[in-house]
């Protein structure tokens, strides 16, 4: 089967996934392994008075009960932005589900029984779990100010307040002929990877081996080395392909605890979270966004003034970065002469929020795109037309000083509009909506790779990316196939072992095809250069007259497959050719985010909807998502990413949200009371397409593309509901109940 670029060979690793032999972390069995269970409290915030482990330790098979007192003192803290998260709660539990102790036993049964017997005496304390409560000057502080030295905001629950902008909003505001202003809310939602987070650790000589369903194995290695006082070379992280990550598995969570338990027990320890526990481990920031936008009568944008409050959890994880990055790009893909952006990262006694597909962008996009629709109605301009009048064309600035528009976005928008018949008559009761989404790609990056061309022409690629379903293994194999000529089933892609695979910064921001892809391309080029030198030697031809490309050696008089040069070139001892790749995107000092966008993900989503007036149920009759992907290296994977992102976005748009009780406990933990889209929740017709102008910075003109199709799902759907019914809803999700309520209010007005 052809595996080259632009084709869709079967997924590398697919065979193991359809036979059940793919080993996710929880499927790996180690001899003598202990099973761990977390001990948590049934409240949001409590002072821990005492922990009595005696009854738990009497359960047969229990080997260890770990509390904060058993950890190194002071209890180690960690986090990608702020080292604020303790290995176990210290003195105070700060959110519903925060582990205060953990049990390890010979069996799961014993661990569960013992966890229930750990007696924690605690005093429940007042907690904050809404933006308003957290911002109240009298609110209890979520974090100890001592953790935030030299921070003027340390005595508030505002972790950071970000200010971005350009031009002078106040000066130009007077020239606006229309100002629209409103507030939108975005719910607290969770990743719900079907593979719950799983962790395992085992003493390994004088170091440690750790298994985790993690997106950033090298981050984890660094975190553990610091906490355990070990050199990096003694921390071996195995990162089997995650069963879905979506950002929720980027950074270390419970690995430090499991590692310390394994070292203390002198035996391997495994911890597999329940789905309920994953709700208490990861979520997206809920957000309130206030948008004021000024327009001239012809629809030209004059200014935007955006203030967002993002609700983080008790520890920052990478959430504040999502706030910075999402709000920085909040003005969207438009020419905006003046902008003022304020965004706050607000701590609360809730599940720590973290990266989640879209990384802080879907929230402002929900608000800003919806405000575009309100402006379009007020101006009497078609919503697509209003957007196109302001849309940045290739090379135009969207954020001063940052990467200019890097695609033909109008082409993308028109394609999506065309797929839903934008502008053509609709049956009665139907409505259409359209929205644009944009997200900055990675701002920095570092990806090393190694490519080994073996004597028979087969290839091994080493890349530290995590393939959590996006298909990185397949795309990397395709790059090697394209450059070195091996059939795809002769290419092995090795990932997920820090002792074997060279460093990669992370798997996030839709970066891997571009950054790791370029690194692998560079490694292949090095291999090709060595083949060229070899061919020159073997055939007595000057190197300058030889070209090696696409798996072929072109000599002045003929063409040979690479493998035909290898055999004589390597000689009697055999051997192989090794190439190393490196792709760096350096930080840019002075840049508000530390670096400009490597690329933009641009998507246009267009929707035709029908609303059941009796139930409030939204039927998506036709749904089109079109992304500018530069070039689809594997069209089937691109389709899966776009349609999958769209369906995931329909979750926060139509149904998903955490429900808290008055004590800050999550009332809808788990799959029964928290619904995600099923096969019955799909649009009647779901169409996805791409724009490919080979204008991206990745291999063969590709761009990153795994998040784009999620960005503007909500505003497109809400606009279609408004068009169908006349009701405007500014709070997500658009549940039947909420829509029905809005319909009732409309009819009683």
């Amino acid at each position, binding site marked *: 089967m052809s595996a080259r670029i632009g084709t*869709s060979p*079967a*997924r590398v*690793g*697919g*065979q*193991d*996934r*359809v*036979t*059940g*032999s*793919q*080993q*996710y972390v*929880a*499927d790996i*069995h180690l001899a003598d392994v202990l099973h761990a269970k977390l001990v948590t409290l049934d409240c949001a915030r409590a002072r821990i008075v005492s922990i009595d482990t005696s009854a738990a330790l009497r359960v047969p098979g229990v080997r260890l009960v770990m509390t904060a007192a058993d950890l190194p003192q002071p209890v180690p803290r960690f986090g990608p932005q702020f080292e604020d998260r303790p290995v176990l709660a210290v003195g105070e539990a700060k959110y519903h589900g925060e582990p205060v102790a953990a049990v390890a036993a010979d069996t*799961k*049964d014993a661990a569960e029984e013992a966890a229930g017997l750990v007696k924690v005496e605690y005093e429940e304390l007042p907690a904050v779990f809404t933006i308003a409560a957290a911002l109240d000057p009298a609110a209890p502080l979520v974090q100890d100010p001592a953790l935030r030295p030299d921070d003027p905001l340390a005595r508030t629950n505002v972790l950071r307040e970000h200010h971005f902008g350009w031009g002078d909003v106040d000066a130009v505001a007077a020239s606006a002929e229309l100002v629209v202003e409103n507030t939108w809310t975005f719910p607290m939602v969770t*990743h*719900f*990877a*079907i*593979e*719950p987070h799983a962790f395992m650790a085992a003493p390994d000589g004088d170091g440690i081996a750790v298994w985790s369903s993690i997106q950033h194995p090298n981050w984890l290695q660094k975190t553990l080395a610091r906490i355990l006082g070990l050199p990096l070379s003694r921390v071996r992280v195995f990162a089997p*392909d*995650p*069963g*879905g*990550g*979506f950002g929720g598995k980027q950074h270390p969570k419970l690995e430090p605890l499991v590692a310390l338990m394994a070292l203390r027990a002198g035996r391997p320890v495994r911890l*597999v979270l*329940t*789905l309920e526990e994953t709700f208490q481990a990861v979520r997206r920031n809920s957000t309130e966004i206030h948008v004021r936008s000024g327009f001239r009568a012809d629809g030209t944008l004059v200014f935007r003034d955006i203030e967002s409050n993002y609700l983080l959890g008790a520890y920052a994880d990478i959430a504040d970065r999502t706030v910075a990055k999402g709000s920085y790009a909040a003005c969207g893909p438009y020419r905006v002469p003046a902008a003022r952006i304020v965004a706050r990262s607000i701590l609360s006694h809730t599940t720590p929020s973290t990266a989640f597909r879209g990384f802080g962008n879907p929230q402002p996009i929900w608000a800003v795109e919806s405000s575009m629709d309100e402006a379009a109605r007020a101006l009497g301009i078609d919503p697509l037309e209003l957007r196109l009048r302001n849309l940045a064309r290739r090379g135009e600035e969207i954020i001063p000083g940052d990467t200019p528009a890097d695609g033909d976005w109008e082409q993308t928008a028109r394609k999506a509009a065309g797929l839903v018949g934008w502008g053509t008559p609709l049956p009665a009761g139907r409505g259409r909506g359209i929205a644009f989404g944009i997200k900055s790609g990675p701002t920095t990056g570092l990806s090393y790779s190694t490519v080994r061309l073996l004597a028979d022409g087969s290839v091994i690629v080493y890349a530290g990316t995590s393939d*959590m*379903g*996006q*298909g990185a293994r397949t795309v990397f194999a395709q790059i090697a196939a394209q450059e070195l000529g091996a059939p795809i089933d002769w290419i092995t892609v090795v990932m997920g072992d820090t002792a074997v695979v060279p460093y990669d910064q992370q798997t996030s921001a839709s970066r891997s095809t571009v950054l790791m892809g370029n690194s692998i391309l560079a490694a292949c080029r090095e291999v090709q250069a060595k083949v060229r030198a070899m061919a020159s030697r073997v055939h007595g031809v000057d190197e300058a007259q030889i070209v090696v490309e696409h798996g072929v050696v072109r000599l002045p008089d003929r063409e040979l497959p690479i493998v035909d040069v290898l055999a004589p070139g390597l000689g009697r001892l055999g051997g192989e050719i090794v190439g190393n790749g490196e792709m760096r995107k350096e930080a840019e000092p002075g840049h508000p985010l530390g670096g400009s966008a490597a690329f933009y993900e641009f998507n246009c989503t267009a929707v035709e909807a029908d609303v059941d007036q009796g139930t409030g149920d939204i039927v998506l009759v036709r749904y089109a998502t079109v992304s500018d992907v530069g070039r689809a290296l594997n069209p*089937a*994977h691109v*389709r*899966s990413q776009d*349609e*999958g*992102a*769209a*369906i*995931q976005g329909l979750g926060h748009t139509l149904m998903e949200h955490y429900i808290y009780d008055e004590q800050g406990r999550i009332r809808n933990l*788990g*799959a*029964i009371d928290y619904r*995600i*889209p*099923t*096969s*019955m929740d*799909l649009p009647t017709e*779901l169409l996805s397409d791409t724009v490919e102008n080979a204008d991206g910075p990745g291999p063969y003109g590709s761009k990153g593309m795994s998040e784009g199709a999620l960005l503007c799902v909500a505003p497109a759907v809400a606009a279609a509901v408004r068009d169908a019914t006349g009701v405007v809803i500014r709070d997500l999700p658009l549940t039947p109940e909420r829509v029905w309520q809005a319909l009732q209010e409309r009819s009683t007005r």
Partner: protein
Amino acid sequence: MIATQPIKVTVNGRPRMLDVAVHHSLLDVLRDDLALTGTKECCLVGECGACTVIVDGRPVDSCLILAVEADGAEISTVEGLAAEGRLSPLQQAFLDTGAVQCGFCIPGQLMSATALLAENPHPTVPEIQEGLAGNLCRCGGYLQISEAVLAAAEAGTR
């Protein structure tokens, strides 16, 4: 002391005599006692479908039945789909249509789809979507999964 009970089951055609804890689910026994880890654990309340296996011809959430309840049953898991190393038409179709992304839900999807096709060899798309409504895919591969089931149904008639 954990109470146990002997059971006799046939798993993927192989008779098994097991002494199982009376409170262990069929999922526990498949994964932990028989090391058949292809069957996945996620929600444990019968909502996600990751643990679907076929018990006496019917698709069942193996997290919801006790192993002792399966005494005497004939059980098929994902490991039993490929006969003599050859993928079943459904497995092949899942690969061909790109239905597999992260893969974690796939064993359950395959077992539900196998049971569906056994009962209804020529399902329509709505019938497939309804038949697989109990199998969540957070990667959102539902369309490709439907396409795979349709393709396998067609292959079955050729």
